């Protein structure tokens, strides 16, 4: 056999082998990283190798079925938040046959009409893959023509609808005209600026009246050696609520109080599941947010290669070592800091994200979790600028006891929404609920201390956000002035230009 023939045979055999391995990765299991057709959006890159989460239609499904499965996956994770945001363009609205004329232009029944994954070239803010003037599809003709309906909009380009702080496609809770008019006369700063739920959270009382000491800790001898840990626990909310060491380290034995049994079941580093036993809603929302997305129940589990091989009629044929090579390299169940796409401190790259990452497990210190924990990993200009900002000064005053509870503004104040649940104040750990578009933050957070007009202007100014609100907004959102003109003053003069000047622009 000549050298050329041998090379051809080897080349063809190698190609066939490589194809077979790659096909096995696709169908049976294994690392599918090299099969990703394009960079995944920032929102989904953590779960990009759990392909079946979104591509749930199965192999060789027709386009319609595949599209349906994709959209079902979108709704599976995002429907609740859209519903809570009173989505202005819910898919159901467009399923009405009267809307059929619009389907050809932009099929708003489908999430994938505007959000397509693996298309980095066309992915814009908020994972939108349609051009920014997409509103033109429906709002430029007949009764929907905003240039006719709103004289003020006649000269506006459609790519300014969602980029000028005036409209969002989904969440317009803080942007609709009546709301703008109702809050038009608010000063830039409330007379008593205070975040009401933060204030309420600080006044919570626990069942135990007598504060426990380090001697109250019940744990195996080996676990009681570190006084710092014991002190941290003794001063914690857990201790105040009557939860002893075993509640987390040996939960099954905690209620029986027998030290021997506690010792037998002692777990040195308890899993997040222990936290979930009591803080169910917090862990649930954590899994919906960017920190814990991989633990979301709808994220597909690693494939079972044995089961898949059996389905292909190859069960039992392959040796165990070969099957092991087709096991999904399940990404760490918890995201690590190093995997983040935002700028982070390099030295924390190895840390994974779980309850204890932010809340010191024994102290359960919510103050540290609200600022220090965030800044220990995040290293972007916005985070850096927080220290020394007016918000930070207020936070320091509150922590020092020099100001009223709820007057300080921490990272968590703005990014982790506090809500009232069953009479208690709970923290929604899904920071996505207050992110992108940032006007989501206005009603639950900003308006506690600031006026609507100021909040709109501030959040529309990227420079001010990067400086963490040091200074004044340099952008004025016109929507409030137009809304007033249209509904209160002379509608026919709506487009005559803004006469309402933001008062903070002239303030010292």
């Amino acid at each position, binding site marked *: 056999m000549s050298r050329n023939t041998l090379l051809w045979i080897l080349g063809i055999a190698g190609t066939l082998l490589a194809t077979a391995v790659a096909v096995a990765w696709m169908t049976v299991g294994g690392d599918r990283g*090299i099969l990703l057709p394009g960079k995944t959006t920032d929102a989904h890159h953590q779960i990009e190798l759990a392909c079946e989460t979104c591509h749930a239609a199965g192999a060789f499904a027709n386009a319609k079925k595949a599209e349906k499965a994709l959209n079902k996956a979108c709704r599976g994770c995002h429907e609740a938040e859209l519903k809570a945001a009173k989505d202005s363009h819910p898919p159901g609205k467009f399923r009405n046959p009267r809307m059929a004329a619009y389907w050809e232009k932009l099929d708003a029944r489908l999430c994938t009409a505007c959000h397509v994954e693996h298309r980095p070239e066309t992915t814009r803010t908020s994972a939108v893959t349609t051009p920014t003037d997409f509103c033109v599809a429906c709002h430029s003709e007949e009764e929907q023509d905003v240039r006719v309906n709103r004289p003020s909009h006649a000269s506006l380009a459609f790519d300014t609808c969602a980029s000028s702080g005036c409209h969002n496609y989904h969440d317009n809770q803080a942007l609709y005209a009546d709301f703008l008019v109702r809050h038009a006369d608010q000063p830039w700063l409330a007379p008593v600026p205070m975040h009401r739920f933060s204030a309420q959270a600080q006044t919570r009382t626990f069942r135990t009246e007598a504060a426990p000491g380090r001697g109250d800790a019940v744990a195996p001898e080996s676990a009681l050696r570190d006084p710092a840990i014991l002190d941290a626990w003794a001063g914690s909310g857990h201790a105040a609520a009557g939860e002893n060491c075993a509640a987390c380290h040996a939960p099954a034995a905690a209620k029986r109080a027998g030290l021997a049994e506690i010792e037998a079941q002692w777990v040195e580093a308890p899993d997040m599941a222990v936290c979930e036993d009591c803080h169910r809603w917090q862990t649930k929302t954590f899994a919906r947010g960017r920190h814990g997305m991989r633990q979301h129940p709808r994220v597909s589990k690693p494939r079972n290669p044995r089961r898949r091989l059996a389905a292909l009629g190859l069960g039992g044929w392959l040796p165990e070592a070969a099957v092991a090579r087709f096991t999904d390299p399940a990404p760490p169940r918890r995201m690590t800091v190093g995997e983040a796409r935002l700028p982070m401190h390099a030295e924390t790259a190895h840390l994974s994200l779980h309850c204890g990452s932010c809340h010191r497990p024994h102290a359960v210190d919510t103050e540290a979790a609200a600022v220090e924990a965030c800044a220990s990993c995040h290293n972007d200009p916005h985070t850096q600028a927080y220290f020394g900002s007016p918000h930070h000064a207020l936070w320091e005053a509150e922590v020092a006891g020099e100001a009223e509870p709820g007057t300080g503004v921490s990272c968590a104040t703005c990014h982790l929404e506090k809500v009232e649940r069953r009479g208690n104040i709970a923290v929604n750990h899904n920071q996505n609920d207050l992110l992108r578009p940032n006007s989501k933050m206005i009603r639950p957070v900003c308006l506690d201390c600031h006026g609507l007009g100021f909040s709109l202007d501030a959040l529309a100014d990227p420079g001010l956000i990067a400086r963490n609100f040091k200074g004044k907004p340099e952008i004025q959102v016109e929507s409030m002035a137009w809304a007033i003109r249209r509904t209160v003053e002379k509608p026919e003069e709506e487009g005559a230009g803004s006469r309402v000047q933001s008062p903070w622009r002239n303030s010292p």
Partner: protein
Amino acid sequence: MTQNPAPTLAEDVVLLLLDDQSGTLLPVQEAAFKCALAGATLMDLAFAYRIDTDLHSLMVSDRTPVGDPMLDRILKRISNHPEVSNAHAWVEILSSEEAGIIREQALARLVEHGVLQRHRKLPGLFRAHRYTRVDGAVERELKGHIRDILHSDDIPDPRDVALICLVDACNILADIFPREEIEQVAPRIEQFHRMDLIGHEVTGTIDEARRAIVLAVRTRAARFGKWLAALSLGGGLAAVATLLVPRIPMPDRFGPGLFELLWSDETWQQWSGYTLLGLSLAGLLVALLMKTPLLVRRKSHDWWPLMHVGFGAGCVLALFAHTGFRFGINLNAALMWNYLALLIFGALVGISMRRTAWPPVNAALNRLRRFSIKAHLLALLPLPALLILHLLIVYLY
């Protein structure tokens, strides 16, 4: 013991094209090789005083068989078609319809004489054979003889002049001898083309026939050359542009613009993708058919290299329509690089087929062609796997 009959010019052409090192046939341009074989056969008939040709006509002067089955068959064919009346037409007919048979016959004769050995390529899969040298003495003797003629000032044998002029007309001399040597003897070769051999063992008729046949062979060998080079150059430049030109930004205006449709609409993506796949398969099919011995014997396929290059150029356009110069990541990026390598090296093969008036340039082009052919074939190897995986990703997910 019977003495071997004198070798034909076609056998000499084949012998000259044996690689010194490997003993296998050099990968010369297929069309040029065929023209050389057609010209060699006509030249043999002219030397045997069976045909008479000048720049305008070719006629059979003696129908008596020569005694060589191959030459006699060609002589009979020429006799039966008096309407085909000039050397250009017969070089065209013979190079396209008889060259394969002439080559097989010449190779068979060399095998018979113990010069070459025949092997089957991938037994049971292909009909084609591979030939390797057994006795290098004959080949070395012939090449040494040609080398001596080129380097001396002696009056050469008319048959040797015909052989040298033939292979030079087909531009395969630079494939046979080193570049430096060709540069050195270029004036001597030119002298052979102008040489008047009347009185040197041949008549004026044969000398005129030599000139007519060499001219016909040169014209024929250069056929499509410009088109091939131009098309390859265009396709190659477009493929290189894919590497160098900035990616075309996606349109930021809503509406059914062409680029928006091309790169965002799934139906358009499928059309452009399958067009690309179809063109690639068509190009591959043409390349395979060109190499099929059965087809070589029966059909004229002079257009086929042009078709192959045409499909390649079409692939560049389809690739642009499908990707818009975007490479993607991971497997898609690998596929894109691989495809571009295939196209660029293919284009280099086409460009390097062009011949110039300068032997050193021709020699450099020959080297480029040999390298590009290997690289083109190497780039072809992983392409099916990458394409299959690309398609599977689309349909499995």
